[in-house]
């Protein structure tokens, strides 16, 4: 198939795909940044939210941070393998990253079920509204990333479109960075 010309030329000197993913992330910074900045100002204005935050389990949050950091590690190893032209190895590392995403989501599902069954729902108060909105938007990004990664891994295993391994990796690390900030905001600061 003939490639569109935009994929082969670049005014910035950055490959077009990577330029695009950075643009996506720049807009994501505004989306998550706006949400987290709003959370922060409400949290500072409402000292009583500390009572609600005391309910979240730091160790579950820490475990999920560990899972995401590990999945970022395998994602960057996939990138390295792809640059060395080893599509099979890249696909293997991507599958490990997807496994990390699944573990993250399963833990999240148990955590939320526990909290919701104890009456802490999105309408309980301002803290819980932010808690479910921010972590929910983040989880949606985890799901989207894992699905896209599965397609890229299938291609990479056949040695096709290896440059995409780096692109999904950059996105995945961003999802990791968002969680790095969500973890202290929602779990550590009591």
């Amino acid at each position, binding site marked *: 198939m003939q490639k569109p010309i935009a994929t082969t030329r670049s005014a910035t000197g950055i490959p077009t795909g990577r330029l695009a993913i950075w643009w996506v992330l720049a807009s994501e910074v505004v989306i998550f940044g706006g949400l987290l900045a709003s959370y922060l100002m409400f949290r500072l204005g409402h000292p009583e939210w500390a009572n609600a935050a005391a309910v979240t389990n730091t160790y579950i949050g820490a475990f999920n941070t560990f899972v995401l950091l590990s999945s970022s590690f395998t994602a960057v190893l996939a990138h390295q393998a792809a640059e060395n032209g080893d599509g099979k190895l890249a696909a293997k590392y991507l599958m490990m990253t997807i496994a990390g995403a699944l573990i993250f989501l399963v833990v999240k599902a148990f955590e939320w079920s526990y909290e919701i069954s104890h009456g802490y729902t999105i309408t309980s108060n301002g803290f819980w509204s932010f808690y479910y909105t921010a972590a929910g938007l983040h989880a949606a990004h985890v799901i989207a990333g894992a699905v896209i990664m599965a397609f890229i891994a299938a291609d990479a295993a056949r040695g096709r479109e*290896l440059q995409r391994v780096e692109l999904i990796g950059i996105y995945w690390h961003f999802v990791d960075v968002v969680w790095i900030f969500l973890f202290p905001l929602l779990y*550590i600061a009591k």
Partner: protein
Amino acid sequence: MPGHTDPKGERHGAQHPNYKKIYFVLLGLLVVSVLGPEFGIGWVTLITAFGIALVKSSLVLQNFMHLRWEKRIMKWMLATSVVLMFLLFAGVAPDVMKHEGHRWVNDAALAATARGIEAPHHAAGDAATAEHAAGSVEGEAVAAVPAEQTFDAKNAYGTVCTTCHGPAGAGDGPGAAALNPKPANFGDAAFWASRTDDHLVKVIREGGASVGKSALMPAWGGLYNEAQARALVAYIKTFKK
């Protein structure tokens, strides 16, 4: 196209730092951020929580996302997004973080703060459970019973009423300046001559408008049940001269 090239034919991403080392540093930092709050010192927790979050995200950005080898325009683009985030914070935070100013009072925020501080930390969840079970607002009243036993009218007055009625009940709180008509002065004998307890309980729970007085006196019925409102009336009587 393995080992993809940019238009100038330079191979991108030849730089691969020691990822394993960075990964272990990240895990070490994670452990520190979890241990930080164990000391129970506020500023230590702040540094281990948010300082380390900044270090971790910077390590991921620079090494895993290869931002340090990226073209400068990309750094500027991301920085612009971050600046926009701070602009949003700086513009909106003063309104959200402060609950009263020279000419305004955010009653809803003050009430939410008072409600949240009064309730023990599990009460929000219990109230929500009860509400869910009863399928109505009545659930809230059920959960409010234990709070009533420990109801401290003086404390409640200090959190909710002082803003307008003043710390000594003279109607001279910081919020009073902006109000017209002025809030009631509980030290005024004429005030007490024309009002019964039931009347005042009604005003506290249903607002000034419910008795044809100023609508600027909000209805606190969601916050205080009848017994608590009576305790408040008993407390404001102590201001009577």
